[in-house]
């Protein structure tokens, strides 16, 4: 390793640290991000502690109070099975949050790895992989997810997570690849090569930190999509067990009651989905602004 390449590397480390501090400061002042993170935080708390604080057990049936409109005891009313809608909405946050985060993290890991490799190596490997990913991307994600969930196992959350992750991987890979193609031309990469660093070091220690902003933004965008995908799949009866306190399932079970003017078992889980999705989008917007992507 020569002196000039070491100097470049140290300089880039110091710059990155400074930029990170500035971005965090900007995020704290960003209203969209603040609102988004607050709402997401609320639902996260519900997911973790919800079942300990709800007034009723989420599965408990009270046959004395079936299809009761919102009131002082049942804040969100009860559904046609005599179950407390409020308790089910609060507890229902767990599954959708866990599944959507897990699917997005998995998809991001896989997509980032593919994007790094294809963007760095280019050549025939890049061409083949990207064409394959484009082919996968050309099919609507929800169709792939629905077919795969139905074909493999109708109501396994774990498999559903893997399928959604698989569906997200191409988009993330393309985003990362584009960023890597640009980064690979910078001096610090050439310097690392001159230092005869191993390829994994160059990919994950040198390039990856510099392409994190688009990855983070892509992660939040995909998280929003994952929330919708899981809600849609569970609404369609796929991916999760029927009857579980899950927002999409709750809507699926109760939507027909709208025609009987019983809006509450459907409206509240729908609002919950909307607030969660919007919160993630606000976070994404905030990150976009700060990262100036």
């Amino acid at each position, binding site marked *: 390793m020569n002196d000039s390449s070491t100097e470049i590397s140290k300089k880039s480390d110091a710059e990155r640290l400074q930029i990170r501090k500035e971005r965090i400061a900007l995020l704290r002042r960003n209203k969209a991000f603040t609102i988004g993170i607050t709402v997401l935080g609320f639902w996260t708390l519900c997911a973790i502690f919800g079942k300990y604080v709800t007034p009723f057990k989420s599965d408990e049936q009270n046959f004395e109070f079936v299809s009761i409109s919102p009131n002082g005891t049942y804040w969100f009313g009860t559904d*046609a099975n005599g179950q407390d809608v409020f308790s089910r909405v609060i507890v229902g946050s767990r599954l959708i949050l866990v599944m959507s985060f897990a699917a997005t993290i998995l998809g991001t890991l896989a997509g980032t790895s593919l994007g790094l490799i294809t963007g760095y190596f280019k050549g025939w490997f890049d061409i083949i992989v990207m064409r394959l990913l484009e082919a996968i991307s050309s099919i609507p994600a929800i169709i792939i997810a629905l077919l795969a969930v139905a074909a493999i196992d109708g109501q396994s959350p774990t498999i559903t997570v893997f399928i959604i992750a698989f569906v997200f991987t191409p988009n993330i890979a393309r985003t990362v690849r584009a960023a890597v193609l640009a980064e690979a031309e910078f001096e610090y990469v050439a310097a690392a090569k001159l230092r005869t660093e191993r390829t994994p070091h160059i990919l994950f220690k040198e390039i990856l930190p510099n392409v994190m902003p688009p990855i983070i933004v892509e992660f939040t965008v995909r998280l929003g999509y994952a929330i919708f995908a899981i809600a849609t799949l569970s609404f369609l009866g796929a991916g999760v067990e029927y009857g579980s306190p899950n927002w999409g399932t709750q809507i699926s079970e109760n939507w027909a009651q709208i*025609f009987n*003017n019983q809006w509450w078992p459907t409206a509240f889980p729908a609002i919950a989905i909307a607030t969660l999705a919007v919160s993630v989008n606000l976070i994404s917007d905030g990150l976009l602004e700060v990262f100036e992507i």
Partner: protein
Amino acid sequence: MTIIDETTNGVAKTGVSRRHFIQGAAATAAGAALPVAGIVGSGAASAAAGTTFRVATGKQVHPAAPWETSDGSLFIISQVGEWLCFQKADGSLEPRIATSWKSSNGAKTWTFKIRKGVKFNDGTPVTVEDIIYTYQSVFTANPSRSKGNFTGLLDANGIVKVDNETIVFNLLTASGNFPYTVSSVSYGMCIIKKGADGGAAWTKTMLSAGPWKMESYTEFEKTVLVKNPYYWDTNFKPGFDKMELIQYTSAATALPALKTGKLDAVAALEAADALSLDKSKFNILTTKAGAGFAHVHLRCNFGPFMDKRVRQAAALTIDRVGYVKGVMKGIGGVVGNDSVMDPYASADKSVPQRKMDVNKAKELMKEAGVPKGFTVDLSTWARDDINKYAKLIKTSFAKIGIKVNLFIDGSDGGGAVYYTYNPYPSAKGKVFAYDNHSWLASNIGITDWAGRGVPDQYLQREWKSTADWSGAQLNDDVMDAAIDEYIAAPNPAKQKAASKKVQERALEMTPYILAYTSNLIYCARKGVTGFEVNSMGQIIANNVKLA
């Protein structure tokens, strides 16, 4: 008295059930996309009085053909088909092609007198040969969904022509309720022409002798019927010219069409849906205590329910009274002792009813060696009432540590799971494991049965060791003997004595949980009179008038 009872004009004494709609997941999605604002609260019962009577029915799973029919297709066959006799809305039988019947030889021989002048809807006469062919073909056709009704009871050689107006059924074993077996209760057994293909090809002509004739048939969607000009009953004078049977995926999706005047009637619906209708615009009709039911089978020959104490414990967890009162809005009869006999006049009322007792259930689980419970999958198909029933089972069993995972298939109206193994046989000494996620082959599953005027078919096709739709696979000699005794009983007194044995054995062995019986609820816009649906769900439109 419920709100619905006040407007009832179609009341059945016994033998009622509901055959209603399938709620498929995909259809649910489509329904959710309906422009709600334009539907909710519209409530306009403004269907123009015309000559077409438009009725919402449940979805088909199989073609509306005699040998293949099931579920929603019975609505169609019940209009074009004709039987020796027909189960009326009150559960009794009325003569149709047969004018009378009598038993002899200790109910082992049944003689039916055939009506003169009955014609098929193409104008050709119905002969004794046609009738014999219809019943003989049930033993040779493939598929033959009605065959199980006759298993152990009759064979092809037992159907004998005496003369051009008389047929004799020589049974293999005595049967006090045999006329029900050759009635519309065997809903696929409408009379077809000698030599005719009663399979899917039959839907091209729908050649039978019922009051209506098929004008057009779009499978799984809609059937248009016109009056059969050759119908034998000269009193058949409905107040309309055409009838449209339109299939809906669920009652909930049909109601907006009813409210906006696109339908005249809905053949079956949920209590909550019925109660939401504006009674100044719609007649809501129901039948009193019914015999139709959806029940839960507990697999007796493999899996976690092999021990009868576990089955008894599971049955003790259910709040039957609360469920009927709350979820079913009080429209339904409570069945406590988990046998199919209770709704019938032949039932022995001295047999105690099973009530919720969680402490006793826990003791039984402890005795059975599973004090902490276990996890088990429940497989069934998607339909409004079945979904709710499944949830009841899940929350009830949880009280004693049994974690129930619900596998509810709504992908094709349940056909895939229901008919994976068709029929699903019972055989002593054999364990048909198959796929645990298939309905009848599962550890627990929910099966619905339409209301029969007598319980014979349930006993023959589900409860006996020779049953072909046996989810529980009880295979119990004591139960078999009790069932045989009941079926052979020639009079009410003997039926009651045998029924008691079936009821007590059911309580002891608990192969099925029958938490409730269900009443048939149907509705029509004001201006429609004479509309009835019998306990099988078969529409009786012969006296309908439209205004």
